[in-house]
């Protein structure tokens, strides 16, 4: 079975941003996303998920390189300054490229 290269963009940020972020992903041209609840620590201190204001989410988007790049850049520009957020991009292979 053939496999095709795609990008996996992972975003870890504040739970409060979930619906905003999903709107941005929908607009970016990506076909889907996956969200899990998370906690963690970074420049904005410890976020221990004890209550909504200190909870994180971890969002994954599988998409083509172009979308990953532009979505990452857009999120960086709009949200990095004001929100606890990190972004990273990895190479992945998928079986059905048309899904992403």
């Amino acid at each position: 079975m053939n496999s095709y290269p795609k990008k996996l963009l992972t975003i870890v940020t504040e739970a409060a941003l979930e619906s905003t972020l999903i709107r941005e992903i929908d607009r970016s041209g990506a076909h889907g996303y996956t969200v899990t609840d998370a906690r963690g620590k970074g420049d904005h201190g410890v976020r221990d998920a004890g209550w909504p204001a200190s909870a994180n989410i971890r969002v994954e988007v599988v998409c083509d390189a172009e979308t990953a790049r532009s979505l990452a850049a857009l999120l960086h520009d709009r949200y990095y300054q004001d929100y606890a957020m990190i972004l990273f991009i990895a190479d992945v292979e998928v079986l059905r490229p048309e899904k992403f």
Partner: protein
Amino acid sequence: MMDPVILFFVLGITAGLLRSELRLPAAVYEFVTIVLLLAIGLKGGIELAKQPLGQLLPQMVAVVALGFVLALLAFPILRKLGRLQRADAASIAAHYGSVSVGTYAVAVAYLGSRQVSFEEHMPLLLVLMEVPAIIVGIILARGVSRSTRWGSVVHEVFLGKGIVLLLGGLFIGWAAGPVGVEPLEPLFMDLFKGILALFLLEMGLITAAQLTGLRRYGVFLVGFGIAMPLFSSVLGIATAWMLGLSLGGTVILATLAASASYIAVPAAMRISVPEANPTLSLAAALGVTFPFNVLIGIPIYHAMAAWALG
């Protein structure tokens, strides 16, 4: 003697400060919050069924005005005395102009165990007082610029968890009336204090975590977090006096005025004034004002109200 629910708060703070392994899962926090919000709404709604809404109009207008005023007064203090940035000052002002449901619940428990009665429609005023300061906060931070997406602000504010559950409870209590709500009482009324105890245990753990924020941003926030509620409670008592509320109602309104939001306002500010640093507002509202009100403030407001009405 201290109310035992307060002791749960003390237990939570202590466990948090000692870095105990005690952590309550987020789902338990949500469950407890949902039951409290619905219970408060239901209680108020039952009472609303008994009196024409028109009669309450003056009170409703007064508390909305009070919410605006408190936020507007807090802002210049934060800006001038605190030398905070515009967005931070606006956000903190919104927290203090709005109200805290947990503090309200503690005041209800406090009056209950002292058999002081109060106007039972207070939850309606609680809901009304949550909102105006949020609008003030956003305008103070942004100006009345065209770029503010007021549609999404309104959505954020009125469709947040807190207001939906309070308003929903109010409506159901009002529609079902005292007899209709009776079968729901074992969960929403009889367990109220027990659930409040669990809630305060969690709030203690959360408060302890906010103290880190405090350490970093110094004494101004501590001072503000104590002085502001004292000042607000005076305005609250004055408003209550003008409205002719009972002693219990005066204590409640003083407490509402003195309390600082930590559900509706943080969520709204995070979306609408993202450049405000949430660590500052939560450190003040949760790290200072919430414990101050719960441990010391409410008895003070009780004494002041008794003096004012006596």
